[in-house]
């Protein structure tokens, strides 16, 4: 077997991950190849350095803090405001957009009703002041005298 193929087997050999047949091929190649033996020694030395690494422990109170945070998040998300703020951003954006659309529809339709009401009111007011609605005042009455005074000369 070529050295390039054997080099790929070095790490699995160090880790005990070679099958029995592969092991046989590997060890017999190494017996006659000082280059590959050197590669193996260097890989084994790197591997052995890891035996010097510390096994680290989680800081004191870690589990308590994790559980406290989880409980706090659950309480917030079950509240009204938390229902909103704990949703994904895009969902919140959709809800806001939907609310704006409803508001705009309401504003526009409300505006149309107000305009109609104003024009109706104006026309009603105008009609109510129109003298055509009233019968002509009798000549001898106060209204009749006023009316005659208010007449435009050309209209006579």
């Amino acid at each position, binding site marked *: 077997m070529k050295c390039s193929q054997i*080099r*790929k087997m*070095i*790490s*699995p050999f160090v*880790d005990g*991950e070679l099958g029995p047949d592969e092991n046989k091929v590997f060890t017999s190649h190494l017996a006659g190849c000082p280059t590959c033996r050197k590669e193996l020694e*260097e*890989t084994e030395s*790197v*591997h052995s*350095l*890891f035996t*010097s*690494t*510390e*096994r*680290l*422990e*989680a*800081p004191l109170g*870690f*589990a308590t*803090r*994790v*559980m406290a*945070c*989880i*409980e706090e*998040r*659950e309480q917030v998300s079950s509240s009204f405001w938390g229902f909103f703020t704990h949703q994904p951003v895009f969902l919140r954006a959709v809800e806001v957009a939907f609310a704006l659309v409803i508001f705009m529809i309401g504003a526009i339709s409300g505006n149309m009703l107000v305009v109609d009401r104003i024009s109706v009111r104006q026309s009603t007011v105008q009609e109510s002041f129109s003298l055509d609605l009233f019968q002509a005042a009798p000549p001898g009455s106060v209204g009749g005298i006023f009316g005659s005074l208010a007449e435009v000369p050309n209209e006579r």
Partner: protein
Amino acid sequence: MHSKGGDHPAFGRLVLRYQDRIYNLCRYMLRDAEEAQDAAQDVFFKAYGSLKDYNPESSFYTWLYRIAVNTCLDYGKKSRPKPFEDECAIDSLACGQPSPERLYQSKETGRLIEAALQKLPKKLRAAIVLKEIEGFSYEEIAGVLGTSVGTVKSRISRAREELRRLLKKV
């Protein structure tokens, strides 16, 4: 699993059982203790939130480690590289390097390994940490990383070659 669906005491027991291993993994994957602690907490928050998706037929261990590795890889993307005080141990002989006798003390060696690990590409780092620090088999590593055994073999080989190159400078 009792911890599914919001059973806090059960999940608390899981946290206690796995906190050291997850913190250990995060510590060797990331730059410093504070970041490792944040990442380790995030791992358990994500695990709690995803419990409903956990398939009890597969190993909980593998599932939790998968969350941990992915969290650490994401942290690596988010955080700006900070100067690591032991980088000079790898990069330069002029940085007050300890004497040859001290180099063989395990604490110094451990710090050298930590510094060298930070110089590896994240995917190689994940594979070698799971192998050398956590003691996983190739198949277990493939399950955690969501890749093939062949890819795991290749990443571990390349990681060791790179570490040899880095540690030769010392």
